[in-house]
């Protein structure tokens, strides 16, 4: 089975942003520009996560999805701040193929059930942000990692599976933005909990981390942010370049000791193939 690598773009207002442990956000540029690059270079899917929808409203995300869907023909998963079925309908109408639901589902699991019923299992993705506590247990956090729920991650994973979602994105808050690698324990435990496809996100800093996850777990896909954004931002030519580079440098410093080694999609896929991990190899025919 081909494994997927997915580009995750966190959106704040009209901008692509990046943080560490979901904090300290810095602007990196225009999301559509990055998305086009990733599509042309053979990324398997895109995820747009609006991290401040509740504060800024949803129009920015809708605009970004619409623009992306005009030129980009791979699956687009979008969400962030979804409150109800109307929000889901609006994003689908703008060209998204899948919708991710996080906080609202924890607050009201019926939303997931109704969304699956209305839009189909394969349209609804459950995004679960998980923090590892000192005692080794994993807890679900919502509101972009700010709010504790006291809900055990794996109980929630089983619950969303029962509610009928087609896919899960499992995020490690501890690893997110650090570039120190994926939480393999978390990933393994999720794969043992439910027989649906899921995507691991949070912590990939080097391409070796990607190989590690695919070789040691049965995860279907890995979602990437820092490792791609910090590479591709250098290919974009626009006036804010210096500004964005300053931001990227800041983030790279904070993530300490250069744990992040930015890579192109091609070099990641090349390494996957060399490590006998099946994946789609895309030849840019332009």
């Amino acid at each position, binding site marked *: 089975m081909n494994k997927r690598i997915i580009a995750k773009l966190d959106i704040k207002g009209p901008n692509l942003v990046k943080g560490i442990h979901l904090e300290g956000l810095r602007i990196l540029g225009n999301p559509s520009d990055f998305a086009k690059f990733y599509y042309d270079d053979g990324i398997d899917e895109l995820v747009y996560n609006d991290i401040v929808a509740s504060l800024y409203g949803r129009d920015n995300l809708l605009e970004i999805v619409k623009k992306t869907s005009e030129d980009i023909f791979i699956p687009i998963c979008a969400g962030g701040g979804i409150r109800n079925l109307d929000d889901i309908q609006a994003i689908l109408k703008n060209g998204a*193929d899948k919708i991710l639901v996080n906080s609202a589902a924890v607050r009201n699991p019926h939303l997931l059930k109704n969304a699956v019923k209305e839009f189909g299992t394969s349209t609804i993705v459950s995004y679960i942000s998980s923090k590892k506590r000192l005692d080794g247990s994993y807890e679900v956090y919502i509101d972009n990692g700010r709010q504790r729920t006291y809900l055990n991650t794996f109980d929630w994973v089983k619950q969303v599976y029962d509610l009928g979602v087609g896919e899960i994105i499992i995020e490690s808050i501890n690893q997110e933005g650090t570039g120190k690698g994926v939480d393999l324990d978390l990933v393994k435990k999720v794969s043992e909990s439910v027989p649906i496809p899921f995507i691991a996100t949070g912590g990939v800093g080097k391409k070796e981390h990607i190989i590690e996850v695919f070789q040691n777990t049965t995860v279907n896909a890995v979602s990437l942010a820092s490792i791609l954004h910090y590479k591709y931002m250098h290919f974009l030519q626009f006036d804010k370049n210096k500004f964005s580079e300053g931001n990227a440098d800041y983030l790279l410093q904070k993530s300490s000791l250069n744990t992040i080694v930015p890579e192109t999609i091609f070099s990641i896929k090349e390494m996957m193939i060399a490590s006998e991990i099946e994946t789609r190899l895309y030849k840019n025919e332009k």
Partner: protein
Amino acid sequence: MKSKRFTVAIIDYSMGNIYSIAQACRKVDLEPIITFQKNIIISCDAVILPGVGAFETAIKKINELNLIEILLNYAATGKPIIGICLGAQLLLQNSEEFGSHKGLGLIEGDVIHFSNYTNNKNLVVPHIGWNKVIINKNTMIQPISKYIRNEDYYFIHSYVLKPAHNEDILAKSIYDNYVFVSAIGHNNIIGLQFHPENSGINGLEIFNGIKEIIKENV
């Protein structure tokens, strides 16, 4: 003088990512018309039947909009009908999802859940991701086959197509070592289990193929 663009009716029964499909049409210079109206559909050069969700719900909505008669009439004109994902499944006769439900019956065969098809309750379902499509050399006479390559296309489904006749199988794929049907075709009726609108350049080539097929029919 600019020549008129060919029109494609994308059937709107409130299920399916019709907007992605419309964008793909535009990209290859086909004019997409999202509609459920009889007069508009019959006048279009091709019909795409999209679909994401449950077979039962889909048939119910299609019935409510009187689309069965409209689609059967359209099929009789000989103009192409392309079903995508659940839309492809609807072209067949029966689905075992939540009891038994009748489809359009434009191609003989059934729809069955992946775990029943494979007798494997532990199979990871839905089948999601890029997977190789292998063309059936025997059915290369079907016009659309020319535009499908032995390469990766994007799948996301829990049910599989089980056409009754081998000559209606256009392509197969493999998931977790199980072979399943990924494309079907009978005369002007085509069913694609994968999503051409999400399959990059290869997917757009299929939309291009629809345009070429329309051209040849005109």
